[in-house]
């Protein structure tokens, strides 16, 4: 598995955990701004830590710039992520319209951003597995 595929896996798994934490906020007693901030900080710290570990395992791969196939995979995955984000934002707007609560809309929009991001990394993994 290449260095960049490992990075995609790390981001994907951590994003799934972040999404679960974010979606579960409604069931956590007193989950407010600090809860989200803690989640985001833990996400960022784990990303940095795990990427440092795999960089340490394969320093040569980590230093090599993305080649044309990896750039293409990145672009194709970003396109899928973009359309997922658009769909999510439209759903969030619909949620505001139906519930009449802007906070639920904001919550859905944040969730849409995270899900779109996860879909982008999932697409990257699929493309790396397929070879293109």
């Amino acid at each position, binding site marked *: 598995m*290449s260095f960049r595929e490992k990075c995609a896996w790390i981001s994907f798994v951590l994003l799934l955990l972040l999404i679960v934490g974010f979606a579960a906020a409604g069931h956590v007693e007193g989950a407010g701004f600090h809860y989200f901030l803690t989640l985001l900080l833990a996400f960022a710290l784990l990303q940095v830590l795990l990427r440092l570990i795999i960089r340490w395992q394969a320093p040569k791969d980590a230093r*090599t710039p993305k080649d*044309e*196939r990896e750039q293409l995979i990145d672009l194709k995955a970003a396109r899928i992520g973009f359309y997922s984000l658009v769909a999510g934002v439209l759903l969030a707007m619909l949620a505001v319209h139906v519930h009449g609560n802007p906070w639920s809309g904001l919550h859905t929009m944040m969730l849409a951003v995270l899900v779109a991001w996860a879909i982008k990394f999932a697409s990257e993994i699929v493309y790396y597995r*397929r*070879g293109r």
Partner: protein
Amino acid sequence: MVPPQITITNTIRKLRFEHGEMTQQDLAERVGVTRQTINAIELGKYSPSLEVAFRIAAAFGVRLENVFSYEGGSQSQ
């Protein structure tokens, strides 16, 4: 009209064998791509750009048509 399906084949595995069992990593370093990309090209999963195709041919010291060939589609001229 749907364009005819073109299958691009390559002789990279054979050329690597003929060049002292050159590893995919060695070839990747000479070409300036990752080992995974060389593997994808070799297996026919990914068609490289002309630039990379020429660099692969140059790494073996052969002409482009000795590395890549295509089957199907019209070969006009």
